[in-house]
């Protein structure tokens, strides 16, 4: 191998002459890459200057950050009473995530059918549903939480409603896609044996999309557990309230304890839901 390589290298100019197109630098492609890279880096530099990034401030901040990290150890809740309080808040967080996901799922199913092209023929209705869902989706959960706090007052209920609002649209979109890709065969079968429109949906489409829906619901529950941990920052219940409080009063050990609690909970929920999803998709493929 290496002998071949040596002979090749010895005759390099000859080889280059014989296969010119393999050795010509791809000038245009290179220029394009350079332009895009230059744009990306230029914008980066512009952003650094515009946002007033000062290296001394970054350095000082990093030093303070190491101090903070040292103060976080070891994570402790300081006393049994507070531990109970934290675990109650964690339970509330899970309740918010579960309630928000269930509400969103229940409300999104009819919307999903409305937005699916093969169920609703009306293009205007279809288009409007999609655009309204896009605009609802573009608002962050925390903003929804602030709006719902104005409606139902401070507390976890506002948090659950916020999670519901920010998820409905994404949910409905995924469901409409699942419905659109469903196999037409069973629907035609039901139709051929005299099934009505509703029966076609119930016996032709629902059995196909139900496992997909279930696995999506679990997936959203996972991601909502994460959202529900922060929703307390604006006063909508859950563990986020304590987390932001302890950080504001610089109780770093307690804050670290809360963060560890969140990390563990999310990891456990992820594991459980992954197993369940695999099981659901497995039975559907049978």
């Amino acid at each position, binding site marked *: 191998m290496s002998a071949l390589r040596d002979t090749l290298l010895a005759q390099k100019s000859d080889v280059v002459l014989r296969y010119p197109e393999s050795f010509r630098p791809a000038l245009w492609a290179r220029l394009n890459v350079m332009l895009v890279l230059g744009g990306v880096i230029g914008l980066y530099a512009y952003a650094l200057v515009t946002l007033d990034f000062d290296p001394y401030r970054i350095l000082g901040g990093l030093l*303070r950050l190491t101090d903070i990290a040292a103060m976080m150890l070891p994570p402790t809740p300081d006393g049994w009473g507070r531990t109970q309080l934290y675990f109650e808040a964690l339970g509330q967080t*899970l309740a918010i995530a579960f*309630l928000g996901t269930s509400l969103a799922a229940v409300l999104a199913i009819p919307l999903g059918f409305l937005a699916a092209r093969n169920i609703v023929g009306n293009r205007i209705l279809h288009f409007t549903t999609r655009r309204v869902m896009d605009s609802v989706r573009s608002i962050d959960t*925390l903003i929804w939480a602030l709006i719902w706090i104005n409606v139902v007052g401070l507390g*976890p*209920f506002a*948090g659950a409603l916020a999670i519901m609002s920010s998820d409905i649209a994404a949910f409905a979109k995924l469901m409409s896609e699942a419905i659109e890709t469903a196999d037409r065969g069973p629907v035609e079968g039901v139709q051929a044996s005299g099934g009505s429109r509703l029966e076609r949906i119930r016996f032709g489409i629902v059995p196909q999309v139900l496992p997909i829906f279930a696995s999506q619901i679990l997936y959203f529950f996972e991601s909502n557990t994460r959202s529900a941990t922060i929703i307390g*920052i604006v006063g909508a219940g859950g563990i986020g309230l304590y987390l932001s409080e302890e950080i504001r009063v610089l109780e770093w050990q307690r804050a670290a304890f809360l963060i560890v609690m*969140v990390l563990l909970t999310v990891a456990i929920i992820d594991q459980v839901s992954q197993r369940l999803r695999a099981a659901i998709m497995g039975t559907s493929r049978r």
Partner: protein
Amino acid sequence: MVPLMRTYADAIAARRRQTALGLALGALALALACLGADVDIFVFWAKLGNFSSYFYRLSKLDTGAFVWTDPTEWYWGLRRWLGQLGETLLMAYLGTATGFVGGFVLCFLCSRNLVRSGWLRWLVRRYLEICRTVPDIVFALIFVVAFGLGPLPGVLAIAIHTTGALGKLFSEVVESIDMKPVEGIAASGGNWFERIRFAVLPQVLSNFTSYGLLRFEVNVRGATVLGFVGAGGIGEELITAIRKFYYADVSAILLLVMVCVMAIDLLSEQVRHRLLALEGARA
């Protein structure tokens, strides 16, 4: 015929029982969740009117006229808000770009097909997991204490969270590549970096860019609320307006944010489709 019917009836009954059990469990969990989340249907029913009336108030100016009758009065602070919106976008961009680089560097170190050493992979994976699981706004809360108010803590928070999220996605892409080019480079004497540069990168780059753009969309949305904790962007203005009940301002800013987020989504979707087309042409 009769035994067959009976078997069928039994099977159906068993499935019904299973469904009923599942539904009962779900209902129980829901009831527990309602208890935990302090749900009060009567309060909700009584206050549901507030929801529509809140949006009604959002559509009114201080003078009592509808907002769309006087756009100049409605958008009195347009110049300032656009500036803050620009800051939000720049924050999202800086954070995404920095996180992209971080995820890019780390993803090769935790891919099973490129790194033999188990402990290095384990270490990098756990680091990425922590970055990804702690929400960016919690990082922002901590960084605001360390770095002071302003966009700097927000950008760092986005960057760290993005490193975790992208690092995981990237490593999944890298683990699913075709290993033949890598073996080819290794056989002709290329070292680890050359293998990545000439065998791995060409296979994954368009996927990486696509994921990066997707993350940018998510981060623009996230950056709009980082101001809630003092980490820069338009969120600061928004939370002040909401807390002080400046209804017309709230609707004006919300509309700006929605239009901006939707525009970014559309733009990035276009670019991603082009990338996919490019990939398809090459394959």
